């Protein structure tokens, strides 16, 4: 006796969260059944393996039917075929768009193209995430990217509006879109210690301050592209390290303020010029696309690593950066105060976030 057909349809669509997770994780029905058996569900409920198999199949079929709608979440809200309470709809969407940390670190900053998609099996092998799940996550990134890429208005809001994601997840996606668009390098060995959260934090600060949207809220791609004019202007900051007097004055101001407050004062004092040169040069180079891509590599190389080798504490770094950016206002010969603040304000936030082991 073999089962030809076996279905269960509820007026309210039943969603089993555990099975949904297994499905999202890309397990086949048989693997999912095996995993559920291992979870001890049979003992808890007194069900048989056959029942579990049938139940899993049923849920998988439902999810498969829902997947089409999940690609455009507002459709899920308006469709009539599946009656799902709003809370469950939100859960379905949220979980569908949730991604794995390990996966996102692999593709963050990469072009979301067919080429990258071909590498997914390598990523799958490396991270231990099933290929199916990798594909879903990659396709999610790409889908969100395509939809919001050329839209005007806030990136996070656009993502929320079109994909009905939670605030947190929408911010994460904004970071992914931003990184993908600017192709920031995140895969270098030096950057391996950084988490997605670190990058997402930086992305958010950069979107807020360095993009077109920061100055004009009615532009196309306003949150996705960096403000070219701003990047061009950053060259002006070079004077801070090029003008020896200015550099010395800057150093003396910082040192005067921090004397006795910094655990690593002497190291700071000796390294000041190198650090300042590093930070200003990063700014000055941002006119070239390639250097934009290497922003994080540069920051780590030019600032994080030197400080770390001198055993600065996070508090030392904070005190230094605060004083470093604030002291510029006292430099009479320097005219680009606003530009400096726009640059350094964001950079300070990023560096503090990036500064950890």
């Amino acid at each position, binding site marked *: 006796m073999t089962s030809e*057909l076996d279905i269960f349809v509820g007026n309210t669509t039943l969603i089993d969260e555990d099975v949904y997770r297994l499905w999202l994780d890309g397990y086949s029905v048989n693997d999912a059944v095996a995993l559920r058996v291992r979870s001890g569900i049979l003992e808890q409920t007194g*069900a*048989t393996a*056959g029942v579990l198999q049938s139940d899993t199949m049923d849920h998988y079929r439902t999810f498969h039917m829902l997947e089409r709608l999940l690609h455009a979440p507002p459709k899920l809200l308006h469709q*009539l075929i599946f009656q799902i309470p709003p809370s469950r709809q939100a859960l379905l969407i949220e979980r569908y768009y949730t991604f794995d940390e390990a996966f996102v670190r692999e593709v963050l900053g990469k072009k979301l193209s067919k080429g990258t998609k071909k590498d997914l099996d390598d990523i799958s092998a490396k991270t231990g995430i099933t290929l199916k799940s990798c594909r879903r996550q990659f396709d999610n990134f790409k889908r969100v990217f395509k939809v919001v890429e050329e839209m005007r208005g806030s990136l996070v809001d656009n993502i929320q509006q079109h994909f009905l994601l939670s605030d947190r997840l929408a911010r994460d996606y904004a970071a992914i879109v931003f990184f993908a668009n600017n192709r920031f390098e995140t895969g270098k060995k030096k950057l391996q210690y950084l988490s997605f959260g670190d990058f997402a934090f930086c992305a958010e600060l950069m979107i807020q301050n360095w993009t077109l*949207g920061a100055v004009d809220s009615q532009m196309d791609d306003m949150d996705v592209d960096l403000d070219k004019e701003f990047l061009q202007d950053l060259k002006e900051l070079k004077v801070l390290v090029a003008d020896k007097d200015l550099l010395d004055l800057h150093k003396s101001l910082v040192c005067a303020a921090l004397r006795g407050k910094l655990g690593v004062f002497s190291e700071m004092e000796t390294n000041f010029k190198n650090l300042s040169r590093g930070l200003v040069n990063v700014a000055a180079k941002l006119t070239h696309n390639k250097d934009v891509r290497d922003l994080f590599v540069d920051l780590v190389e030019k600032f994080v690593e030197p400080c770390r080798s001198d055993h600065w504490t996070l508090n030392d770094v904070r005190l230094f950066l605060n004083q470093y950016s604030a002291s510029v206002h006292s430099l009479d010969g320097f005219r680009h105060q606003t530009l400096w603040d726009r640059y350094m304000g964001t950079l300070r936030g990023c560096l503090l976030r990036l500064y950890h082991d």
Partner: protein
Amino acid sequence: MPGKLKVKIVAGRHLPVMDRASDLTDAFVEVKFGNTTFKTDVYLKSLNPQWNSEWFKFEVDDEDLQDEPLQITVLDHDTYSANDAIGKVYIDIDPLLYSEAATVISGWFPIYDTIHGIRGEINVVVKVDLFNDLNRFRQSSCGVKFFCTTSIPKCYRAVVIHGFVEELVVNEDPEYQWIDRIRTPRASNEARQRLISLMSGELQRKIGLKVLEMRGNAVVGYLQCFDLEGESGLVVRAIGTACTLDKLSSPAAFLPACNSPSKEMKEIPFNEDPNPNPHSSGPSTPLKNQTYSFSPSKSYSRQSSSSDTDLSLTPKTGMGSGSAGKEGGPFKALLRQQTQAALEQRGGSPHRFCRRREFPFLTLTAFPPGLLVHVGGVVSARSVKLLDRIHNPAFVGIMGNTRSYKLLDWNSFNSDEPETRDAWWAEIRQEIKSHAKALGCHAVVGYSESTSICEEVCILSASGTAAVLNPRFLQEGTVEGSLEQRIEENLPVGCGFCHIPYDELNMPFPAHLTYCYNCRKQKVPDVLFTTIDLPTDAVVVGKGCLIQARLCRLKKKAQAEANATAISNLLPFMEYEVHTQLMNKLKLKGMNALFGLRIQITVGENMLMGLASATGVYLAALPTPGGIQIAGKTPNDGSYEQHISHMQKRINDTIAKNKELYEINPPEVSEEIIGSPIPEPRQRSRLLRSQSESSDEVTELDLSHGKKDAFVLEIDDTDAMEDVHSLLTDVPPPSGFYSCNTEIMPGINNWTSEIQMFTSVRVVRLSSLNLTNQALNKNFNGLCENLLKSLYFKLRSMTPCCLCHVNFTVSLPEDELIQVTVTAVAITFDKNQALQTTKAHAEKTLQRASTDNDELLQFPLELCSDSLPAPAFPATKEHLESASSNSGTPAAQRATSVDYSSFADRCSSWIELIKLKAQTIRRGSIKTTVTVEKASPMGDGNFRNRSAPPCASSTVGVVKMTPLSFIPGAKITKYLGIINMFFIRETTSLREEGGVSGFLHAFIAEVFAMVRAHVAALGGNAVVSYIMKQCVFMENPSKNQAQCLINVSGDAVVFVRESDLEAMSTQQSAVNCQTSCPGEVTT
């Protein structure tokens, strides 16, 4: 010109891409009613067109309004080739035709295509203006309300219950017409859908006419079915109970205010002769001719309807030219019976009901208090018929000695058809009636009819519960007249219905009678089988449970008559075995009564399947069931003896376990009380045993087992051994679950508001090699048990809950395929409130009785309170124990569920937040709101769990569906009309749609969606008494094809949560609201 139909096409959304080049669609809409068609403009290049059309107006007869569906077709405009159809929407406008229901149909309807399924939605507004029509001889019956609910609908009061109405309509099946060979599957499916829609409309109109003729204003328990007879045609038949209903909010208004033409009929003054037809005035007239006073003015080209059942008997005699002599036999017998019946009733019985209606049948399963006096038992009849085939010149009705021949040219074929079908049913109904009579009952309640068709063989089945009814409700107008009789006949509430209606000295079958354990005055049988719901006032011990008997019988493949003979030879054995199984399982559960019994016999190519479902309960009024004893045939064998005693022990253990599980703890009754003399045996008219002429029709009556204690199972061969084993294989539902096939679970009444209606379908393929009856039985048993287990597993998050109205349907679509379809509803209940059950239940019963029937039930009230305390106490104690013992187990589950819900709340609040933001974006002020939010601490790891105030909202209104007549924790405030929908879905890319399971899963989900959309458009928020009447699935995997037909029905309603209601009711008419709804359960 009695009606104007107005339609406006507003917009579409989510349309499919019809133009690959642009990924867009140029959609327009055709609106068709009858032969008139309107079109909207083409809305270019959009998947969300906004047509905003003018009002399309159709001026039509109200007759057409009843018959025709409104047909809306969405098409894609194509300049160069033919326009492509996107899909259709059929809207039944019947709910707009009676004043109390919906006034407008407005909403989003799924656009449905029989090949592609749902393809987007369309927003439509429909209105109807009806004009008064004084023409008495009209053929429409606008204004008669239809209810699928098999009890008096919640916000109505039954003034009179007029009785049985039936009708059937026959047509050619478009699928089998010659044209089907050249048209597309889509065209064929649509022709079929449209035809059935038309036929159901016509059928409903005709039933409505009969109701008006009976002076009723509503049909309750309306059940419409399709028989797909293949080449011999398509039959749409319906039965129901005609009533005069009175809306409860306006108790004074006996006649509703009339603003529709239908009300004209009802305005006939009541002092007029109630039987205007001279033929039916005399009580001894055996055949009442219910001829209508109008002549049919309209002729149907291809369709023809039946005449009234009564009439159809007469022409048949003339028609059966070939075998008039044979036919005379049963016909005379029929006459004789009726004459006798009539004579009997003249001798004192006040039951005018029986005189007036040929078939005193009610399709109701629950009754207004006081209507049901006694219950006799289940009566059923089956008949095997051969459907005539086109290439076969002779039509032969095999069973029941009817044999008639007729010509088969198309015209006569069509015109004679309904009469034939009518005669078949009349014959069966007659049989049922005579069985009821044999039980000393004048009526049959909980009556239903069904068919099973395989190729050219058709089994017609009917069953019901023989009963004695209080005539008060059955007479027109003169309510006061019967008042005295009513009081005379008063019986104790709670056990009266169990008392035998038949004469104990002249019992129709051997049965063991005892004095009622409740009132000790009347006699009761040892077990009681019924097809009705448990009466609300019945005193029950413990809880009930679903009991099923399952059976397969192999049959040789045969043709035509040989096949029919083989089947009819098998039927009695199947009935017997099903009955034995039921009885054994009932005893094994320690219970003594079955409610909601439904026996389905399905015929296939090479086997017959029997599936009986019922809800077992322990009625306090009936004696404690004896155990089951096993007796071996070969007593000399030592090991065998040992085996037997082992089995016996297992059985005894099971009984004990079940008693504990279902909390069956009847009070001890001393024998002396039972032995006390009867006050006075009531004088009853002499019984006539019905002589069943045909061998195929078997009643339950002959099967009753006699002695009380010694219920002996003889194990004489391996088969019997298997049977005993199979008895013990049924596992009880896991803890926290109960199941029943009645409306509510006996012993549980503290329902909470969560409900989940579902349909589950399974098809299994049997291995064709050496199939035996035993193996088949085992397979079938396993299939049903596994299905139940799956349901329990799937719904485990709802525990404690009860599966109510569990409805199994078996069909045999192909040689080795068995299809089982289950529809039921899971309702949660509050375990902690279980303490008050029994007592509160009893009190509630009293309240119900008193509120609904204030003037009459003073007396039974007193009796009832006397008899209740005895069983109430132990049961309550039991509840206490169970509540305390079980409270520990689901703690973990509960904890997780709480966790989830808070997460869910957060999720929903996100969506809410997003919506808010979307709005602010449009206003152009986002940047500020965003920066404010971003100022919040970002590095905080707990940010993900940030929660906003929960608020639930959805763009699509929730529509609840339930097979029950009520919604727990809510009050139905309005009935919007009947939902009766028929869909066909076909695919030629089965694999691509996920195989058979994917195909059917999607289709059923779509059917639910379309039902919900129609209800929502009517302004409703629930469907009650929902039933999936048919789910015919056919597949051809080798061709990658499948087809499925689904027919569903129910009542669209508006309900209000009781919690919401309380706030409202404090302001006004609090008394009315609280008392008007007796069936409601407060939580």
